[in-house]
């Protein structure tokens, strides 16, 4: 046994005496990491959201103030009041939820037939098609959004094609409008919708469809009465994966949207980087958490429980 081994043995027994075990240490490492770098930051955001902006470093007032008679807490709700007063923020919330909602529906409409087609095709075609769905996901998100600038701009590929075909005379103004944002969202989030839908549809029992057809139902009626209700868990899972991140989306509205495209992620970014108002940016973040993220997380937990019980 070498010197360092006895040293290690001594350290280990010392740690054990102090109440640490190997098991405890293993549990502590990821828990502490996430505690420090994920949970505590939210407390910091909460703290700064009740501070006053200052022109200083850091640009916010301290929460605990040392006065003549000891420490006191100095907090203000003026940043939250400001969010309610200025119609910009309420509008941005509604607009984010609206864009997220309609783009989730659009993604579902585009993704459902694709997922269904893949689920019904045979190997090896099926895994090749799945590969084609996953492949864009591994390439840069930013560059895939960028690709649409070249296609949609006034003298871009799409307008060039439509004009040369004689369909339109004047270029369509799509870039820097909400339409471009919808296109960008549907495009980049399509794999997130297709994969859970596929996972659900591939388990669909074909004999149910045959039975329905034998009993005289038309394919359309079979789809709406058998396939669609059975694929509801897949639809919900896919919609969550699209709806939640789109609400906070920054890159797509920043590159494809116009100055009128209001989204809460963009507002937070501007508040922070351009206006340098850290307390208001923090208040926007907390309001966004309470208004959107927490309800959705509860919904997700309820959904997981329902699936476990089923």
């Amino acid at each position, binding site marked *: 046994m070498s010197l360092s081994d006895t040293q290690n043995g001594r350290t280990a027994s010392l740690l054990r005496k102090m109440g640490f075990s190997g*098991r405890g240490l*293993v*549990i502590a*490492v*990821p*828990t502490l*990491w*996430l*505690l420090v*770098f*994920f949970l*505590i930051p939210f407390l*910091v*955001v909460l703290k700064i959201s009740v501070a006053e902006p200052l022109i200083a470093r*850091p640009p916010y007032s301290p929460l605990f103030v040392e006065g003549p008679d000891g420490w006191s807490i100095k907090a203000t709700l003026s940043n939250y009041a400001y969010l309610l007063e200025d119609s910009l923020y309420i509008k941005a919330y509604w607009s984010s939820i609206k864009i997220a909602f309609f783009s989730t529906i659009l993604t579902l409409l*585009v993704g459902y*037939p*694709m997922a*269904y*087609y893949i689920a019904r095709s045979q190997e090896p075609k099926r895994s090749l098609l799945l*590969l*084609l769905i*996953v*492949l864009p996901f*591994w*390439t*840069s*998100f*930013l*560059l*895939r959004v*960028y*690709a*649409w*600038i*070249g*296609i949609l701009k006034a*003298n*871009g*590929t799409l307008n*060039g094609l439509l004009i040369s075909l004689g369909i339109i005379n004047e270029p369509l103004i799509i870039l820097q409008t909400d339409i471009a944002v919808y296109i960008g969202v549907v*495009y980049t989030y399509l794999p997130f919708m297709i994969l859970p839908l596929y996972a659900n549809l591939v388990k669909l029992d074909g004999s149910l469809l045959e039975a329905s057809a034998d009993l005289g139902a038309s*394919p359309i009626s079979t789809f709406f009465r058998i396939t669609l209700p059975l694929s509801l868990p897949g639809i919900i899972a896919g919609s969550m994966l699209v709806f939640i*991140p789109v609400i*906070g989306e920054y*890159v797509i509205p*920043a*590159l494809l949207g116009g100055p009128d495209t209001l989204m809460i*992620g963009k507002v*937070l*970014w501007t508040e*922070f980087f351009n206006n340098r108002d*850290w307390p208001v*940016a923090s208040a926007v*973040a907390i309001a*966004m958490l309470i208004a*959107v*993220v927490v309800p*959705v*997380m509860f919904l997700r937990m309820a959904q997981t429980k329902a699936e476990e019980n089923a």
Partner: protein
Amino acid sequence: MRRSYFLPIAALVGFLFLYIPIISLVIYSFNDSKLVTVWGGWTTKWYGELFRDPQILGAAWISLKIGVISATIATILGTIAALVLTRFGKVRVRGLLTGMVTAPLVMPEVITGLSLLLLFVAMEIALGWPAQRGVLTITIAHITFCMAYVAVVVQSRLVDMDDSIEEAAADLGAKPVRVFFDITLPMIAPALISGWLLSFTLSLDDLVIASFVSGPGSSTLPMVIFSKVKLGVSPDINALATLIILFVAIGITGAWFFMRKQLK
């Protein structure tokens, strides 16, 4: 059942929608005209320009470094978290850990970025560390959200896996550490590889979080690309995109053939 053409046509349109933008990026990277819509003949000059641009090369190097380090640490931490949640029986902090592992997956990036920056600033004031923001703070941020993805991937593998082999090893007298390295680790290796690759891709791709926690002189590749494309279309970015697409396509197709061979 009557054969319907609706489904194949809808699927074809969907696949065209997925691939036309990517194909157009690749084609216009060889365009000899700076205006994207005007075709000026074939050229490879944008690739040459790309490799002579010190800003892009420097940012690519920083991004690769951050990607490799954060993917590796995120894989280790995420695997430990997954083990704790699936193999440790009763754990007092289970609820807390489960919440903290799943929450980063649904958290809007702007919130994660802002909260980490404010933490780093508060730590700098209180502890004097980190003295300045840069590669280190970006790496910490990436480890944090990537380990959540790794934990989810590894956890689903551990749940599906037959744990009777681990039990047998333990019954035969192997210590928990030995069971982990000799039995569990080789069996979850595929999940570790996909977790690492996922983390590496997410890290390499992140613009929003990195923009919040970066400092002077630590611009990552997405930050440089973003500042360039905000000004409009630039052909050397198309060249860069083509190289990334080529790299990913070769990697994924290779992995696909490898897995098909393994299955046979």
